[in-house]
């Protein structure tokens, strides 16, 4: 293929002018991908009154920022955002387009992909550039985006390739990609975009909006104590809280514990939750599905407590304790308090 390649785009999500961490993480990943492809990193920033967002985007690695400011783009609604992005795609033909797998990204990405007839892979845990030799259909694709994600209950890891027209679209959860330090010396180009919106694009009206910043900051935590289905009950989750409090850590959970209603989704670690890399991760009663491990296996030290000696969590643990967390957790609290 000799035709000029499109750039690597990141949808920049913002709330009241504050850029979402996941967008900055994706800009950093985009730098790596664009480096391999020999193309540029470009951000797509939509909303109203956004000028303060632009410089940080340069610092993290955007070489171009397409900025659309319009009162009709604030607060976020899907259709006008999709319209502006589709128009930009048609005009500039990016090679790759990444969204954070947030509430917004997960409702906007598919709407854009559907109109563009592009493939979209959700919740990727790794992204790489490689060739794809499609032997079934006898096609060879050079330098495609390998979209890697656990699939099917975590029993397999699938590498997915978008073989149609660009862009190759993916969503990625917060914390999965690492955020590099910004370089304030970096400069970029601002392209102001005038949205072309019709009344039909803005039929969904937001009447009331209530939100607060997340009270949990798992990504920044040094110590995390996480509970899974093996904790047994909502009441018993207090043990997890007590250990976290004693050690000065944050409380986390596996999906099974969140689904059981014992704790809020903000605390969920894993492919469909947050990815964390703390100094210490204590997994209590968590069997350790691939989706959960994908969110925590880069922790510096991992302690696993489980009654089942064959639980997969032990394969990633630095310290394994086979036994009942109901007696082990109190012993840990006691031992720490005695020493500290």
């Amino acid at each position, binding site marked *: 293929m000799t035709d000029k390649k499109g750039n690597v785009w990141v949808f920049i999500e913002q709330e009241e002018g504050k850029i979402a961490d996941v967008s900055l993480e994706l800009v950093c990943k985009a730098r790596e991908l664009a480096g391999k492809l020999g193309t540029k990193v470009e951000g797509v920033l939509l909303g109203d009154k956004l000028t303060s967002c632009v410089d940080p985007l340069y610092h993290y690695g955007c070489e171009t920022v397409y900025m659309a400011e319009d009162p009709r783009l604030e607060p976020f609604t899907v259709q006008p955002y999709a319209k502006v992005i589709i128009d930009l795609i048609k005009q500039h033909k990016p090679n790759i387009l990444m969204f954070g797998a947030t509430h917004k990204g997960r*409702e906007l990405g598919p709407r854009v992909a559907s109109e563009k007839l592009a493939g979209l892979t959700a919740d990727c845990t790794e992204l790489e550039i490689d060739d794809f030799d499609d032997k079934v259909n006898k096609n060879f694709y050079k330098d495609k985006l390998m979209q890697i994600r656990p699939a*099917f209950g975590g029993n397999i890891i699938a590498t997915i*390739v978008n073989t149609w027209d660009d862009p190759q679209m993916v969503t990625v959860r917060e914390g999965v990609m690492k955020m590099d330090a910004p370089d304030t010396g970096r400069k970029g180009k601002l392209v102001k975009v005038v949205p072309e919106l019709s009344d039909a694009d803005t039929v969904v009206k937001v009447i009331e909006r209530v939100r607060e910043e997340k009270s949990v900051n798992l990504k920044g935590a040094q110590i995390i104590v996480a509970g899974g289905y093996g904790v047994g009950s909502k009441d018993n989750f207090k043990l997890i809280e007590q250990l976290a409090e004693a050690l000065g850590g944050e409380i986390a959970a596996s999906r099974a514990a969140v689904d059981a209603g014992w704790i809020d989704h903000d605390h969920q670690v894993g492919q469909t939750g947050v990815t964390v890399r703390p100094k210490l991760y204590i997994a209590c009663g968590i069997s350790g599905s691939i989706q959960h491990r994908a969110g925590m296996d880069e922790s510096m030290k991992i302690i696993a407590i489980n009654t089942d000696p064959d639980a997969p969590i032990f394969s990633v643990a630095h310290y394994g304790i086979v036994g009942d967390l109901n007696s082990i957790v109190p012993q840990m609290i006691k*031992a720490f308090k005695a020493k500290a």
Partner: protein
Amino acid sequence: MSYKILVFVKQVPDTQNISGDAMKPDGTVNRAALPAIFNPEDLNALELALQLKDKYGAKVVAGTMGPPNAAEVLREAMYRGADEAVLLSDRAFAGADTLATSYALSCCANKIGKYDLILCGRQAIDGDTAQVGPQLAEKLALPQISYVEEILELSKNKVKARREIEGGYEVVEAPLPALMTVIDANEPRPAAARRLMKYKKARTPFELSRDHANANYTDAEALAVEQENLKSRGLLITEYSASEVGADIQRTGLNGSPTKVKKIQNVVLKATDSKMIEANEAGITELIHELIADHTLG
């Protein structure tokens, strides 16, 4: 005035209980090897539709795309309160990714005709992608409200709903017809005993002819009579093929799927330098002391 509500549901493999032959060599799912269930959030979508039926009066049509056996979830939808059911089934749909699925469902919705609302579960547990709802909305050029918790008001021209956003909620309003994806924020009603007695006899034409063939019963006329009989009692599940909904088979199934599976790896656990700790006071105390000594703790 009575509303017409389409609820698209999916029969999904129970991903909690997976056996080794769950995947085919081409990287698609071998559904035959897995227990199949009603996708949980689709039950929440059905429940919202049934609440609207109770409150405002509505005809609720449950639709699904899947193999012939997917008729089972349609019967379950009827046990709970759906008035009609439509199965979209064709080999041409096999191996569809989310884009090809939403295209096929859009053809089905157009075939069913005029509707006021389409409800879908936010996501299915076999893929967790949450893409088909928004893609279907785009294909049908409908306003889209995602992550709906509750429908606050339905009137002739518009719907008002409360939806989840990151860290809170929104109340939004959209004109009809509209599409909503629904999250796990209600308690789906169980099957009603009386409805179960009635609708357990519901069949697709395919199932009916299969029953006849299994009984070595080959009278085509008798089959046609029985089909008419089921239909007159509201027990015939409508079945559409790709051509019957006017789908272009270049846009369905594997043909219509831009994403291809390059490879599948079985999960290999990486070996970590792991140390087993005795589950007693001495072992745990030693571990805590070790972590304090290397500054992981304290």
